């Protein structure tokens, strides 16, 4: 049936000369077009709800090359100090506020010594936090 050829025209996507010629003599298609337009118009009037939710709090953390290099330098420095003299501070009390009890024992094979690096980790976190606040 010829009426079925004009799907795109009836939903308002396009308006071709062929459809204009066709609907001039087809009351059914004229009615279809009119009613589908009404459906769309009514939907636009009906769909008016507003978003009342919050703007999600998001934060993007980006570390540029300079802060990253600085963090790496601090890391190396702190580890370097421990490696140089692992027995100097054999049993530091872990700072639970920053490490949440997380610490490691490292066995340093060349010296056959044990080192505890919770203090080093704390220093790293603090440095990263400072860099994040003032990049």
């Amino acid at each position, binding site marked *: 049936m010829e009426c079925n050829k004009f799907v795109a025209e009836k939903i308002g996507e396009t308006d071709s000369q062929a459809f204009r010629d066709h609907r001039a003599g087809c009351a059914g298609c004229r009615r279809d077009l009119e009613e589908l337009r009404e459906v769309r118009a009514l939907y636009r009037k009906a769909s008016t709800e507003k978003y009342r939710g919050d703007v999600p709090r*998001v934060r993007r953390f980006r570390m540029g090359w300079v802060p990253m290099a600085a963090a790496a330098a601090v890391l190396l420095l702190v580890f370097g100090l421990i490696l140089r003299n692992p027995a100097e501070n054999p049993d530091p009390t872990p700072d639970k506020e920053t490490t949440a009890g997380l610490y490691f024992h490292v066995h340093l094979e060349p010296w056959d010594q044990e080192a505890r690096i919770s203090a080093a980790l704390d220093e790293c976190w603090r440095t990263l936090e400072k860099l994040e606040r003032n990049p």
Partner: protein
Amino acid sequence: MDELIRGLKAGRPEAFERLVREFGDRIYRFVKRLAGDRQAEDLTQEVFIRIHRSIDAYRPEGRFESWLFAIAGNLCIDHARRRKPEASISELDEDLSADRFASSGREPIEAAEEGERKRALLKAVERLPFEQKQVFLLREEAGLSFKEIADMTGCPLNTALGRMHYAMESLRKSLKAYGMQ
């Protein structure tokens, strides 16, 4: 739009606020009708969080709106898979029964009839098969072209046009069934 995208990629909070201001209502309505329940506000928030997380992956080959609503659509599909099958229509009925369609400055009967027609239409949209509803909403709420809709949903252009036609026919019939057209 380019400035907004640059701001989002740079992580500027004001760009994110602008995104919510400019697209919040449309995404909310899209999600609300497609997912069809009261978690629409939460889902809308989740859409914005996903946009924030994946903005670096956005490439300006397609329209930004197309990308945004693809994220919203995928989220609704995920949500529909997780969700229990009940809810939806009854929740929508309740939601639509509020007198938000009442308009001042008109004859009460006329305004009530118009409110009734709008309510019936939105309920009919809610009841459309998912594919038809998705195409209808991508067209009407997101304002995408049928070519963009076809690309996004992975169907041929004629299928997208056909789904829209079926959707609109179905809505028209629903309104007629209420004797309102």
